């Protein structure tokens, strides 16, 4: 497969996953605000701060909006064309990447991505995002799921499909770590206890952002406890949005591409992903809290960046003439 095409498939997939995750975070936060009747008297800005902080976009956000209320935040994450990570921008970039590879993906995939792009650009979509943002986010999430389903059902599960998976899984692992980290940014209202009502609701929203609340409930009967939530979304082996699951699958996809066994590494990117994979396989939640949850998540994010970089180096950087393939 052409290096350029592999790169575009990877980015197409990353951007769609990013759009979906933005919709998830914002959608859950909307609900969270309804649950909490502003007990601390915090202004609208404070209530939305965690979202903006988690995206690491505070200054850029304040530069765009005079009145930084909930409406502004929703606009920023959904439709703002100046925000390169808004749902609108992500879908535009996803579609642009799909267009340069549209002979590699199935026509059903291309039509779905194009449909989603045309939707987010349309006036009805803009109106929906303003008047009923929750509905808007749900449509984006469903659109992304439809794309993933179509991808699995209509594209050969070969090299191109694996690059698509890698893009999705890297983005997902990164995003799950950020969702968990949002909780770190939320200051408990004064007078509230750790493990109290508000705290529990906030931890539940973390699970909901990852579609993990129901799966969590099946595993842990009883109260939603912070360390259990963190354990679940970081280290669960089989839940499809946990960080460990994403990294395991990502590592497997890399090995399918190179054809090397999962017990060894054939190149730098496999060494990096294998190392992160085994860390996640063997770490305990006790280790993580001892290290510091925020610090641990930050470290994961850094290592995901290294993997993305390594993949680009191994497969997509322009091949120099030296490594002339034999016929």
């Amino acid at each position: 497969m052409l290096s350029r095409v592999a790169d575009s498939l990877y980015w197409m997939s990353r951007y769609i996953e990013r759009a979906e995750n933005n919709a998830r975070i914002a959608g859950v936060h909307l609900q969270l605000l309804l649950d909490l009747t502003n007990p601390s008297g915090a202004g609208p800005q404070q209530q939305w701060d965690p979202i903006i902080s988690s995206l690491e976009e505070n200054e850029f956000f304040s530069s765009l909006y005079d009145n930084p209320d909930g409406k502004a935040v929703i606009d920023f994450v959904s439709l703002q064309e100046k925000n390169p990570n808004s749902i609108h921008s992500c879908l535009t970039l996803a579609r642009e990447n799909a267009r340069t590879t549209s002979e590699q993906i199935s026509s059903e995939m291309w039509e779905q991505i194009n449909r989603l792009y045309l939707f987010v650009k349309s006036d009805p979509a803009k109106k929906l995002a303003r008047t009923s943002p929750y509905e808007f986010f749900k449509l984006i999430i469903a659109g992304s799921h439809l794309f993933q389903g179509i991808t699995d059902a209509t594209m050969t599960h070969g090299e191109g499909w694996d690059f698509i998976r890698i893009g999705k899984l890297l983005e997902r692992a990164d995003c799950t770590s950020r969702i968990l980290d949002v909780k770190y940014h939320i200051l408990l209202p004064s007078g509230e206890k750790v493990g109290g009502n508000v705290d529990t609701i906030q931890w539940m929203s973390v699970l909901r952002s990852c579609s993990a609340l129901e799966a969590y409930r099946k595993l842990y009967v009883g109260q939603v406890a912070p360390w259990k939530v963190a354990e679940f979304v970081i280290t669960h082996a089989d839940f499809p949005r946990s960080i460990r699951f994403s990294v395991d699958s990502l590592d497997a996809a890399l090995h399918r591409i190179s054809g090397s066994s999962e017990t060894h590494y054939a190149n730098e990117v496999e060494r990096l992903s294998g190392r992160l994979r085994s860390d996640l396989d063997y770490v305990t939640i006790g280790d993580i809290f001892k290290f510091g949850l925020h610090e641990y998540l930050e470290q994961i994010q850094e290592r995901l960046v290294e993997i993305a970089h390594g993949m680009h180096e191994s497969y997509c950087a322009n091949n120099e003439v030296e490594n002339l393939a034999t016929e």
Partner: protein
Amino acid sequence: MGDFFSDYQVGDFFDEMFAGPGVVRPHYRKLFARFKEMEREEFERKRAHAASASLTQGVTFTVYDDDQGTERIFPFDLVPRIIPAEEWELVERGLVQRITALNLFLYDIYHTQNILRDGVIPKQIVWEAAHFRPEFMHFDVPRNIYIHICGTDLIRDKEGTYLVLEDNARCPSGVSYVIENRQTMKRTFPSLLGQYRVRAVEDYSQELLNVLRYIAPGGKTEPTVVLLTPGVYNSAYFEHSFLARSMGIEIVEGRDLVAQEGRVFMRTTMGLKPVDVIYRRINDDFLDPQVFRKDSGLGVPGLVEACRDGNVSLANSIGTGIADDKAVYHFVPKMIRYYLSEDPILANVSTYLATVKEDLSYILDHIPELVIKAVNESGGYGMLIGPQATKAECESFRERVKRNPRNYIAQPVVPLSRAPAFCDDSMQGRHVDLRPFILSGEKVTIIPGGLTRVALQAGSLVVNSSQGGGSKDTWILEAEDGAIGFSDLTT
């Protein structure tokens, strides 16, 4: 009922559907009957469906001088253009004859140049042609085929006679719309299509791939074929990606290829992989900055050398532009007589060459009645339609022709045939042309039909997509239309 055709004006033109006011030509009768029973709402629904389908499929082209979202849908008119079998049979024979002569001409021009020695074509016409490539003299192209893919534009005059307007022998585009248009018609008018026996167009991509494999270097049996595109911002990118997909080959940009020691490779995730045949959708000028335009970032340095060494084959070959020069066009009927000793089956539109003294003075005296064309332009650019031009425009072309006669030809305004198209809420006669696609490989194959382009502006004669044109599906009927209608079954 919809009452689509009750106010239809046949006008003073050859009409594809009507022989006279209210007189439907036999091969259009079933279509006429179908529209007669159709409600407006049903037709509107079909139109909306067709438009939204092309939008989601991204069937678009790019307009250059327009910064407002560069992608546009190529407008599609739902009334098909129907051509009976015997009419098409003549066109097909004419096109085979023409492409055969053009390929012989190119071989001759790049070898012994007998046609110039024998004075059939003036030497200067060839020597001064912008797309003549003297650096490729005595170079043998695989299987001696120069033009593998040709798009020849046909029009019909007032009597309905088919005439050749021009040959596009470099990188003709439009064939993807032919295939997409048929898909749309299958979804919107399935029963009407079923009533006619229409020849299929879908196997074009397979035929094209056969041609590309046929010209592989050294007759290699499993060659690696790629399509070279200028990139996603090219106006025909949709088509490039469509064709690559339907042939199952890679679509590459210049930066994906590298030439090394006379061979061409593509950069893949598994290292460099050799390439054998390139279906290039980039003009000669941009192919290789070492040989042609130095400023081209689209091409591949060293590609031409690899091609000269016989390690990679190009379709179309380098230097075919000489065959679609509009001054050379004038001589195609003579080429046919010269190489094939046959009378041309399809006639040219009569042409005045500004390089010929008598022709030049005629042109200068009659500009407001003529169509003036720059010899190397296409896409409706660089031309003047005298009767529709202002005085100032005519004057400016007079100066240009005087200054550079080799660059211009003139033709009388041909009143192109018209076909009904749905415009402004009613059926109206609109001018059409037809671009069949001709493939030359082991044998010559022609797509049954081709792209019917329609000038959607009332009165306009310019059908190019870049100038507000649209397209129609083109139905070539099987010989002896033996479709079994309902009435046949009951008797």
